[in-house]
């Protein structure tokens, strides 16, 4: 992903293109990273289908709790989880994470698809290539902003704070032991 962002930025920003030159190699790196980005998830899905399907199910199913999460989205910046009915099923991901997953998946797949007419430009009309390129640039910017926001929220989350404090973070879920399902010691569940 970092290679895609860097090479894409070099190709997009004229001043950087001028510094780096070597268009063929920058483009080749970009295409190689794009191919890897497409192939890696497919490989992981093929090798560990059950786990991937489980994660996908957790990400795609939105319950009442998720919609309630969006009634107070600013809470995420305050490291607070929204209190919900304890009888409800607890999801592995919060609504923000689910939204991020959808947006990132749409952006990544559409970036890949819009790359097709950009690469095989001779098989498409100039207008189609142009529209694909416009959308490609837009989505790339949106994805970078989305990733930056995700990283930021990750850093201000309890996991991020722990990581920064201890330079290590547990893979275990944050324990929830209070009766209403609120996080133990005020620790939320990240972004």
């Amino acid at each position, binding site marked *: 992903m970092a290679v895609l962002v860097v090479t894409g930025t070099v190709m997009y920003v004229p001043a950087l293109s001028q510094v780096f030159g070597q268009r063929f190699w920058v483009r080749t790196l970009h295409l190689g990273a794009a191919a890897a980005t497409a192939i890696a998830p497919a490989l992981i899905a093929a090798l560990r289908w059950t786990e991937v399907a489980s994660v996908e199910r957790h990400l795609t199913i939105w319950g009442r709790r998720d919609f309630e999460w969006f009634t107070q989205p600013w809470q995420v910046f305050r490291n607070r989880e929204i209190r919900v009915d304890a009888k409800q099923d607890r999801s592995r991901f919060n609504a923000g994470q689910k939204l991020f997953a959808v947006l990132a998946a749409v952006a990544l797949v559409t970036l890949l698809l819009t790359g097709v007419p950009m690469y095989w430009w001779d098989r498409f009309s*100039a207008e189609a290539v142009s529209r694909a390129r416009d959308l490609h640039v837009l989505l790339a910017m949106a994805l970078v902003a989305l990733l930056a926001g995700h990283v930021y929220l990750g850093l201000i989350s309890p996991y991020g704070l722990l990581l920064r404090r201890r330079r290590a973070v547990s893979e275990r879920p944050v324990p929830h032991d209070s009766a209403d399902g609120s996080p133990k010691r005020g620790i939320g569940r990240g972004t």
Partner: protein
Amino acid sequence: MSGRPVGRRSFIAGTAAGLGLVAFGGGVPAALRSWVESPLGDLTPGDGFHFYSVTGSIPQWNPGTWRLVVDGLVDRPLALARDEVAATRLAGVTADFHCVTGWSVSSVRWAGLPVRDLLDQAGVQARAAAVRFESADGVYVDYLDLQTARTDGVLIAFNMNARPLTAERGAPARLVVPFFHGYKGVKWLRRLTAVAEAGTGYWEARGYAADARIRH
């Protein structure tokens, strides 16, 4: 786990919307991009052109010693100095510039010497079938068959939009083929060579189509 598969549906709808914009979006993607790019200032190309180079630097040139060479299968090889070019009445062509990667610049006004006039002046021999265009960067070359090279509007441009070419746009001279994609427009041009057979251009050797004609 109870609820609805909102994520899956959103993914399908979002991706379909993206594809729809590419297929039938008209000017919407361009308008959105312009809107997003407008606050970015110098990060985006001011004149609409992106900068492409296949080497790490822009070739330097000296106006006093620079020559545009026309050689190969010709009877009278030429070496035109910048002053000689400046004293010539330049021809003009206005065309949209299209890059294969999808960006375009509308109504670019080029001024320069028609390739046909240069070839006539040099006296192309009957054996010649194509012209090789060589950049001063020493790496980028491309070819046009003679018929294409002699077409109206095919220029060795020295000016763009009524101003001398900038270094980024290919100064002092670049090839302009208004009906081809931009990769045929060799920048920092220093030599035209009449050859018996068209070779493979820089990008064509790297997978680009030999037919660079813009499809509308």
